[in-house]
């Protein structure tokens, strides 16, 4: 049966034909020997869904400006490519593709686009994708996940493993992720509600908002965007936050046993609502520091800001 699907699929692979703009497509091939899938679509919407069958199928409508459509295996990689005419400087007429691709969940996925939106769900292997102005929505992915959009938003849910989400001006919204996570943006906002134990977040002017369950390591860096959130710091864990002019609001669990070191270098302001310890102002210059320990100081919290306000409080 698989052979039949494969052969019928191969028979349909003469799809590198011109003048197929806007055509409907409905193809399927065996995924028996396939280990990875790469998808290239310049504009429109592509949904990549994991399924339990040993086949790769594609269904939907191609871009109105499609010059060549590729749906063929190259070694153990399956290539899907919607090619548009060159030299259009991004000014194509009509609508982009609208495609649904179904793939076995154990296959590695790579995708890229320009203004194309992508959605993915259910994969157990590595997923790696980038788009320029399109949005990316990803759900239920495991292992290594790297998603990047320049000006589009990246929205994720139930991701696990080693995660890396990045944008320049788009927002990152993450929910129920776990494992190790790295979130990065320039001017976009970051919002995460996660059970990841190792979290690194950086932004230039974007706001960072986090709700973390139990962390071993949390590292945040920002230039001017606000940083606010809450977390439970595990025994032996470490939180390190560095910012230039950001306002930082950090809520931690009660009875945390940690060594705290907070510094504001130039006109920054420190508010401690965790204990009665007060910040110490430098004799000369505008800096102030706050150092104290709670319990046996098993964990460490280190915050440095130049001119922002730091507030420490209980969850």
């Amino acid at each position: 049966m698989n052979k039949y699907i494969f052969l019928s699929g191969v028979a349909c692979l003469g799809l590198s034909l011109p003048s197929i703009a806007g055509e409907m497509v409905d193809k399927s091939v065996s995924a028996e020997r396939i280990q990875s899938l790469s998808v290239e679509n310049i504009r429109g919407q592509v949904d990549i869904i994991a399924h339990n069958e040993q086949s790769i199928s594609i269904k939907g409508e191609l871009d109105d400006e499609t010059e060549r459509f590729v749906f063929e295996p190259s070694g153990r990689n399956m290539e899907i490519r919607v090619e548009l005419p060159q030299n259009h400087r991004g000014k194509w007429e009509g609508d982009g593709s609208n495609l649904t691709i179904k793939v076995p969940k154990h296959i590695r996925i790579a995708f890229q686009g320009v203004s194309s939106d992508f959605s993915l769900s259910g994969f157990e292997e590595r997923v790696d994708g980038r788009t320029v102005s399109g949005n990316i929505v990803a759900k239920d992915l495991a292992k290594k996940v790297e998603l990047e959009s320049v000006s589009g938003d990246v929205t994720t849910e139930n991701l696990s493993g080693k995660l890396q989400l990045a944008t320049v001006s788009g927002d990152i919204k993450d929910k129920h992720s776990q494992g190790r996570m790295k979130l990065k943006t320039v001017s976009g906002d970051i919002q995460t509600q996660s059970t990841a134990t190792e979290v690194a977040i950086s932004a230039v002017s974007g706001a960072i908002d986090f709700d973390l369950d139990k962390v071993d390591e949390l590292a945040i860096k920002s230039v001017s965007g606000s940083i606010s959130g809450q977390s439970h710091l595990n025994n032996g864990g470490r939180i390190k936050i560095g910012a230039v002019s950001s306002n930082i609001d950090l809520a931690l669990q009660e009875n945390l046993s940690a060594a705290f070191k907070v510094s504001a270098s130039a006109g920054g302001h420190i508010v401690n609502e965790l204990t009665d310890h007060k910040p110490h102002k430098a004799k000369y210059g505008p800096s102030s520091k706050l150092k104290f320990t709670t319990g046996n100081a098993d964990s460490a919290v280190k915050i440095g800001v130049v001119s922002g306000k730091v507030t420490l409080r209980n969850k």
Partner: protein
Amino acid sequence: MTISDQELKQQIEAMPDEMTPSRDLWPGIEKAMVYQEQTKPTSFSVKHNPLLAIAASAFLVVASWVGVSSYQPQPQSMSIVAQMNHDFEQQKQLLLTSYGQQPIKQLQPNMQQELEQLKKARQSLERALQDDENNADLLNLLQWTQQQELEFIEQLYRPTWQSI
């Protein structure tokens, strides 16, 4: 570790006036001098070898030209911050040159604003470091901010970004 001038003076005064090597080195020196005498090449004059004189002159001209052209003045005793800024500016120039020195004013206003914010952040870190020049956290933050600016410039001028 830092020590005060007073401590440094005391340590200098406590040092011995002279030091003797752990073993007698004179026999070795004598032997080396004798060996040099024996292996000294016979003297020659450029008067007898004009080609050699021309080659030597040509070599000197080329060597001095290479030396002058590759010389870059390094300020004496540069602070860490100055060194970081120097490196950063060089990298930034290199990056901008590689993308054809496109004027920043042609960028979208919000992107120009981000670059301005990064610049201001660098300046405020530099000011903070004037009061505490060896503060590792501030130095790290400055380095990170510079890195963000370089990465941002790279992203802005990348062809994919230009396409939108």
